[in-house]
């Protein structure tokens, strides 16, 4: 029922949050390092994440498709009706049966599983000894599977409802109702003009990121570098016609500023920290505008919704140990994203406001990393090229409105 049963289908946002405008689990440590003049660096980052759980508004762990698991009540059936006459017909049936808005026919069920892999080639070049520029071009391959169902309950109410409709002498209504009660999500999505919720696999270009780093200060122990970056809208936002979609981008431009500090404790130990702020620039976008506060599923699309995604602040701290090509590290990060803002002229402002629900995000995560490099050997002329490979595990330890599943990454670097 997209809402037959008026169902909340926020899963699309959750799924897309893996790689689009929402908070993402970090997969590397902050670093103040810049490349020496004329040195080029090509790194290939491979990221792998699943999405099956999320942290909700209260920080509780729920399944990704939690919004699909919804009781089917007279209230939701009533809310889903567009015309006064249809609403009155639901009221009339409810009154005739002596029921109230909270009486339930059962509940809809749904599960969404996402696996996404990003390949991110990053090319960096040392313009001067202080300035390094880089470009990251992510290619995102995603696999999404969805299954929906229903658990019918209250057989008496069920049969009374069907009998009442049968007595009305409109078999189409009976068949429609039986379909909606047996396939609530699919039927409602169809009614609301969504594409059928089926699994899909995609391979898409993500948002290209251009980075400039400037080394502000450096001595034997400390290095401070500031960073500016631009994220271009080269990825594809979630399809407004799909209830669950893995987006490779968010169709808008971001500007970022940051500073990173490295502190060398010894030849083997170093600490690094970074603080960044990212402005997500306002734009216009096609959005489904909720009909009710408790559900995102809606037939109404404003193709020109004014959107201002919340800005993001992040803080990262990490410790690294490196000895003769062996590398270990651990880090912590905190990210916070402001609430998104939406407005438009096509529907009431209250409905645009409902779109902003659960868009404020926070994420705390821990990272551990391990890897090898040949820099030590290269300097000793014992290896033909300076290479580095690192494996990272990121675990989301707390947050609100973010995907909870861990992130795995492999980062291969080559300097030439």
């Amino acid at each position, binding site marked *: 029922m997209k809402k037959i049963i008026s169902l909340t289908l926020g899963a699309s946002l959750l799924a897309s949050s893996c790689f689009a405008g929402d908070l993402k689990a970090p997969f590397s440590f902050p670093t103040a390092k810049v490349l020496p003049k004329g040195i080029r660096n090509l790194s290939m980052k491979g990221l792998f994440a*699943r999405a099956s759980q999320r942290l909700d508004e209260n920080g509780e762990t729920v399944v990704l498709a939690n919004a699909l698991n919804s009781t089917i009540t007279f209230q939701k059936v009533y809310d889903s009706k567009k015309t006064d006459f249809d609403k009155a017909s639901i009221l009339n049936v409810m009154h005739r049966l002596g029921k109230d808005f909270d009486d339930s026919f059962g509940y809809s069920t*749904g599960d969404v599983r996402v696996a996404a892999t990003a390949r991110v080639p990053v090319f960096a070049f040392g313009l001067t000894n202080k300035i390094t520029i880089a470009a990251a071009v992510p290619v995102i391959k995603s696999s999404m599977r969805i299954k929906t169902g229903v658990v019918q309950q209250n057989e008496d109410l069920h049969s009374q409802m069907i009998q009442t409709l049968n007595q009305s002498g409109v*078999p189409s209504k009976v068949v429609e109702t039986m379909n909606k009660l047996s396939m609530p999500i699919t039927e409602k999505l169809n009614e609301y003009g969504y594409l059928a919720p089926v699994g899909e696999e995609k391979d898409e270009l993500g948002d290209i990121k251009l980075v400039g780093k400037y080394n502000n200060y450096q001595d034997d122990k400390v290095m401070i570098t500031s960073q500016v970056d631009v994220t271009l809208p080269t990825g594809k936002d979630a399809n407004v016609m799909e209830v669950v979609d893995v987006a490779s981008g968010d169709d808008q431009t971001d500007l970022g500023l940051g500073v990173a500090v490295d502190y060398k404790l010894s030849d083997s130990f170093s600490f690094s920290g970074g603080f960044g702020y990212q402005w997500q620039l306002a734009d216009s976008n096609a959005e489904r505008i909720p009909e009710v506060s408790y559900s995102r599923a809606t037939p109404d699309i404003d193709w020109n919704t004014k959107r201002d995604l919340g800005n993001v602040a992040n803080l990262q701290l990490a410790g690294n140990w490196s000895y003769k090509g062996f590398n270990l590290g651990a880090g912590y990060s905190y990210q916070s994203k402001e609430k998104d803002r939406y407005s438009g002229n096509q529907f009431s402002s209250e409905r645009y406001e409902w779109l902003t629900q659960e868009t404020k995000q926070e994420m705390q995560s821990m990272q551990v990393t391990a890897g090898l490099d040949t820099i030590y050997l290269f300097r000793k002329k014992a290896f033909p090229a300076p290479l580095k490979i690192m494996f990272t595990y990121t675990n989301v330890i707390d947050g609100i409105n973010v995907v909870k599943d861990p992130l795995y990454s492999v980062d291969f670097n080559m300097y030439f």
Partner: protein
Amino acid sequence: MKNLNVFLLSLIFISCGRLAQVPVVENFTFEEQTVIPFSTNSLVSPMVRAATIVVVPEREDVKGLVFNPLDGSTAAEWTDLYSNLDYSDYLPGEFTLDMPIDQKILGASEIVMAAGSIRDQYLRNLSTLESEFSQKEEDVRAYEDSAGLTDITCYYASRPSRGTPYTCRFDEDAASGFTRTKTFYSCENWVLFSLDANQEVHVQFQKYAEIAQNCEGLQAELDEINTIIQSRKLTRLSAENVVLDLLLETEKVTDLVFAAKAATIEKPDSIGEESSLVFSADKMSVEEFKLFVDFLPGNSSKVGYAEYSIANGLIRDVSVYVSDLGVKKLKFTLELPDMTFVVNADISVEKMPIGFRVIDSAAKVEFNNGKSRKGVFKLEFDTVKL
């Protein structure tokens, strides 16, 4: 370096081919019910038994509606309808200007629906009651035949020569002076007789009293059922009139026509024909379709029954088809003087008293002034055989 490139490329491909896990959900549904199809074996009377042709008001139509139906000339009918609905507390008792528009439009719509549903409900109920009534009449007749009503003779005091002076009064004919001998044939008439005073010691008295008691009981049961039958019939009529009353009041505050009435078996046109619909033998086309329609004395530009039929072109684009949902449907366009009904009705059939019905609860109504509304179009027929 070549090996490094191979390694680099292999890293790119490592990330390929990861699939999401298979989702798992709970699922349980009750056994589905089915609808009775309208088959070629169904025999349906071509004459329309009852018809409903109404336009459903929208918010702007009821915005200016001020109406206190429970305190006016139609109060009895509204009260009758409301007292027969156990959810009448949810329906508006009056319409005022400061009433929230949601409450006003939902209330008006629900009154139309409540009236329709109680008419159907009581039609079914009447059929049951009439069967009960017939059965009870059979019981009374059986009792009359077996209880020896005619064994008790009654003589008039003025004619002592005709027998034992066991005298009765014939209340029905008291003014005539009890001139004739009477014999009790039926329970219905039994109550018309009573004994004169001081005859309780007579040999026939006990038998008389027993029959009197039994007849009274049986007759009371009959009367009780009959009272309910008459009440149900009255409520069905009240329900219809309440809808017409509400729609007529709505017409007063708009420029639209909200209700039409068709000449049917239940409500014939006293001087003309009744409406009819004739299907082909395979029930997949319509051979004849004519409606005799009149309007309320409100906003209609034309009052008085007139024919709207395939023959005169005012019913057109008629087709019978089976929808994607497997429901047989009748589609047609009905051109009335002030509006056009585009009907795409479900055909349903069940045993009498409901019988065969053609219903579109969301017909498109296009008014000549450019406004559009939804309407309810319903025709009912008797079924001879399912």
